[in-house]
Structure formats: C-alpha cells, structure tokens
C-alpha cells in the first residue's frame, strides 16, 4: 500500500512526535508513505476566506502533486483533511474553477484532474488496511487501558464532505480502531465535540472552556487516555489542559495521545519511542 503523504505544518513543528510515531510503524504494516515535500500549508481553515480562489489553487496544487505520483493522498490532521477535501469538492463540481487553477498549475507541469482521493489516516487504517488485519499485527494488546475517543470536528463535519465514514452525531470508526487494538472504550459526551483550537489565539478563554469540558468529561468517565486523530485537538487538550481545568475549578490529569501513538503502543513500541514523554501532560 502506497500513498502520497501530505505534510501538516503542526506535525512539522509543534507536534513532531505525531509524525515520527507514525513513521516508526508504517513499515510494520507494509504501508509506504511518500512525503509531499513540495506541498504547502492547506491554509488552516483561514485562507478560504482570505482569498477563496487562492485557497482553491493552493490546495488544487497540493492534490495535483499526489496525482502526478499516481497516488491517493493521506493526511493525519483533521483541518488539513477539511481544507483539501473542501477544495477538491469545489474543483470537482465547478469546471470553471478547475480551469482557472489549471491555467496556472500548467506552468509548473501540474494538472488537477480529481483522480486522487484525499483520506485521513484513520480512514486508511479502518477501511483500506482493515481492522482485522490490523488486529492480527497487534503484539501488545491494550487490554488494561480505557480510552476516551475524541474525533475532532474536521473529520466529522461538514458530513457531506467527509465521505460517509461516520455519522457526525454518533461516530464509531475511532472506537472500532481502539477495540481492534485490544483497548477499552469509555462512553462520554464529548467524543464529537469541539476542542476550541481555531480560536485559541483570538478567543482563548472561550477555547479553553471547550477543551476543559472534554477533559473533565473524560476524567469523570475514568478514562486512562484521550485519543485523537487530530494534532490540533491534541494541542488544545494537552498543552492547554491546565487552563481548561481551571475554568471548571477542577484538578487532575488526563494524558492525550495521537492516533499514530495508540497504534504504536499496540504494535509494541514504548512511550518514549513514540514521543509520549514529549507531551505536556504525562
């Protein structure tokens, strides 16, 4: 299995542990990732309103780089997933937009055709690879651990852009993955809620209230970890955990782990190898 791998800015800078914990086990599963070094930032859910046409061209170019390799593209960041799939949807349904961006991409020897799919790492593991096959690879079943799944918004909503993988009001793919790895899932109310990441700088108090809600919810459900497929949610829930808890007048600790880390744990890698010791809450 071979994919073009879209490099997310946050995984290249603030959350490198998410990236290297992914790269540590892909070979074990026979998954080859070709990093798209020439790809740019997706616009972080901002460029689409700064300049909608530039947003289309930038992300059309990102996908065209994967198309040139003849590969589907995967990302391990929810917001990159949204940006790329949003642009793809517009380009695939509005021929005049596709023509507009291709007129410029041509100068680089690129063309956006729409043939490469854009998928999240979670979907690739659940659908393309298959959970039975993944379960068979587990060397360290997570039997004694309880996980609170936190999906993050941009892998669920807007649902028409998300390929039908999950019902946004009652998702299950992350739970399915946790169980395939031998782990236990805790039921709690926050699994499809918002972490507040996108307003952490402009409305910090409100944002940390949202992440605090989820952390308190997971603590009350007696989870050992929150696991998330989004590095941005990880940042809100982990690095701002103390702030979030203080808005609820609560104390405690809830370690947050990235999707690649929970897979790595079940495949027998240590917390240190997976960079879990790099998190703020350990």
């Amino acid at each position, binding site marked *: 299995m071979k994919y073009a791998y879209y490099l997310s800015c946050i995984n290249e800078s603030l959350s490198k542990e998410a990236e290297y914990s992914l790269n540590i086990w892909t070979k074990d599963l026979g998954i080859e990732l070709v990093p798209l070094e020439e790809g*740019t930032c997706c616009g972080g859910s901002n460029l689409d309103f700064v*300049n909608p*046409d530039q947003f289309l061209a*930038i992300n059309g170019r990102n996908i065209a780089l994967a198309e040139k390799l003849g590969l589907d593209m995967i990302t391990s960041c929810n917001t990159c997933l949204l940006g790329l799939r949003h642009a793809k949807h517009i380009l695939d349904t509005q021929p005049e937009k596709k023509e507009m961006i291709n007129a410029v991409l041509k100068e680089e020897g690129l063309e956006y055709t729409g043939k490469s799919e854009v998928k999240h790492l979670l979907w690739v593991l659940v659908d393309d690879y298959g959970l039975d096959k993944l379960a068979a690879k587990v060397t360290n079943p997570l039997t004694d651990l309880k996980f609170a799944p936190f999906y993050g*918004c941009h892998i669920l909503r807007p649902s028409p852009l998300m390929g039908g993988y999950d019902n946004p*009001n009652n998702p299950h793919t992350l739970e399915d993955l946790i169980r395939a790895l031998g782990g236990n899932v805790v039921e709690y109310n926050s699994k499809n809620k918002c972490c507040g990441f996108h307003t952490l700088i402009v409305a910090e108090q409100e*944002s940390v209230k949202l992440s605090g809600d989820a952390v308190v919810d997971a603590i009350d459900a007696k989870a050992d970890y929150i696991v998330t497929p989004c590095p941005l949610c990880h940042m809100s829930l982990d*690095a701002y955990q103390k702030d979030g808890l203080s808005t609820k007048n609560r104390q405690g600790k809830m370690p947050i782990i990235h999707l690649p880390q929970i897979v790595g744990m079940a495949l027998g890698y240590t917390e240190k190898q997976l960079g879990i010791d790099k*998190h*703020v809450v350990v």
Partner: protein
Amino acid sequence: MDEKKDIYFKIYRYNPEVDQKPFYDDFKISVERGVTILRAINYIKDHVDSSLSYRFYCQAGICGSCAMRVNGVSKLACTTQVWDELENCKEKDMITIEPLNNFEIIRDMIVDYKPVINKLEKYISWVTPKIKQADLGKKENIISEAEFKVIDAATDCILCAACFSECSMMSANKEYISPLALLKAFRMVKDSRDTRSDERMAVLNQDHGMWDCTHCYRCVEACVKNIPIMDAIQGVRNEAFIRKQNGTEGYKHANAFAQDIRKTGRLKEATIAIRTKGIFGAAGMLPFAIRMTLRGRMPSMFVKTIPGIKHVRNIFRKIK
C-alpha cells in the same frame, strides 16, 4: 413488517417557578410508522399529560417554532420521523426529548428566545433600502438575479435556532454573536439593496463578533434547511478582507497564513501569536511557550522553504 410499535419517550421537564431542578418523565406510547416527533408528543399532551409544554405552530417545517433536541441533536419536531430516530437511541426504542441548548428555560421545551432577538437587533439584521421611506411600496427596489444568487441560501433561514443551540462558542460565552446572527449578517451585508453595511461591519468586527467562530461546523450539521452557514460566516470574514478592515486580531491571524504560504509555503508557528496579537498581547501566551520549551517542542524561528516555492508565489501573483 412491524408497522406499529411501543416506543418510550424520555422527556425533559422543568418549571423554574416550581421545580428545584430539571427531571425527566418517561411515557410509553404505541406509534405507527410515518408519525413525526411532534405528532407523538402532541398525543402525549392530549391523552397522557396535558402539562407537557413546548412550542409549535405550522407543523410543516416552515415556522421554526418546534425546534428541540431529539436524542441530543437540535432539530424540528415536525419534520423528524419517530422511526428514523430509533436508529439514534442510546437505549433501545427510547427517544430523548430535551429543550434547545444555550437558552434559559421557561418551561419544559419552551426556551427564552430573547437573546436571539437581541442579537438580531445588535447586528442590524434587516435591510435598510436606498429608496426613501415615503416611496416605499410605490417604487420597486430591485436586486438582480446574480446578486440574489449570492444570498439565496441564506434567505432560507427560518430562525428556528437549532444552530444557536448546537454552537460550541455559544456554550462557552453567551455574548458570542451566534451562527444565526452571522448568517443574517452575511445575508444583509451582501444584499445590494442595503445601505447600512459599513455600520454593520463595524459591529461585526467587535469582540465576540465574526472572528470568534471556532469553525466546528456544528451549525452547518444542525441546520434544518441545509443552509451552508459556515460559507456565510467565511463570507462575512471575506468581506472584511475585501474592505481591508485589517485592525482586528482575527484579520491579522488569518492574514498570517496567506503571508506564510506565499513566503515559504509553510506556516511559521513560532511567531503566529505575536503577529496576531502584537508583542504585548501575546505575552499572555508565555505560559504556553514555556510548557512547550520545557518539552523541547518550541518550533524553530527558521522555517525551511519548500522546494518549488516560485510556483506557489506565481499562484499568488496570477490569481487575485
């Protein structure tokens, strides 16, 4: 096929004048396929408990008054089928009915709608046309088909407040504008007949306004009319860029993404807070910076430029 079955309704009850706190009543009724949630609770009110309180009027998905939470999700009772909801029950065949979130409760599912009215007033959510008051009704105030197409979907809003109820930021701060008022703002700002957009944009740019949306898309998912509310929110923000209203943190934050992509292709995370809030404003983020530094995770001030950046810059040059 089983066309009629016993279904349990777990319904929120609260009368603040009498009850210490909210509680739930369970009702078991026999329901045929094709019955809506509204008809089912009307049956309970008519035959089991006449004190059950909720709003409804048109029963056809037009007036928006019967919005409530069904199995935890805000929707219209009159357009929601009981049998469809059976798939969403946490306990088998038990449908939970609750009032909208983010409102004060008057009684049971009746919420105090006043905050919506206040926000619609604050953000000037109506068209003030160019023609004089005296000529209204005498002269036509025309909008072209192309101009109307921009706001067409937004005009479908029936003010049911399902989006208001699902909004993440509303749950964090009641001062927040709300997706409902943002949708209306877009509809008015983009209406070529309107004359007060300068004034409206000034209010939208204030604290708790358009820049505080956290992009969770819960409003879009909840909209009973399938209006792409987030497109409207981004549309209002785009209007700020068109007008070069560059004084807000929200504007500066978003603009930093565009600048970075053009410059290196990648986001320069190390300075984004300073570029958004200025040096003094970003001082509040010092504890975050210290935490990240202690874990060896503070990003470098130097961002490696992607190969092929000249092509990216060409895109920014050619596509305006």
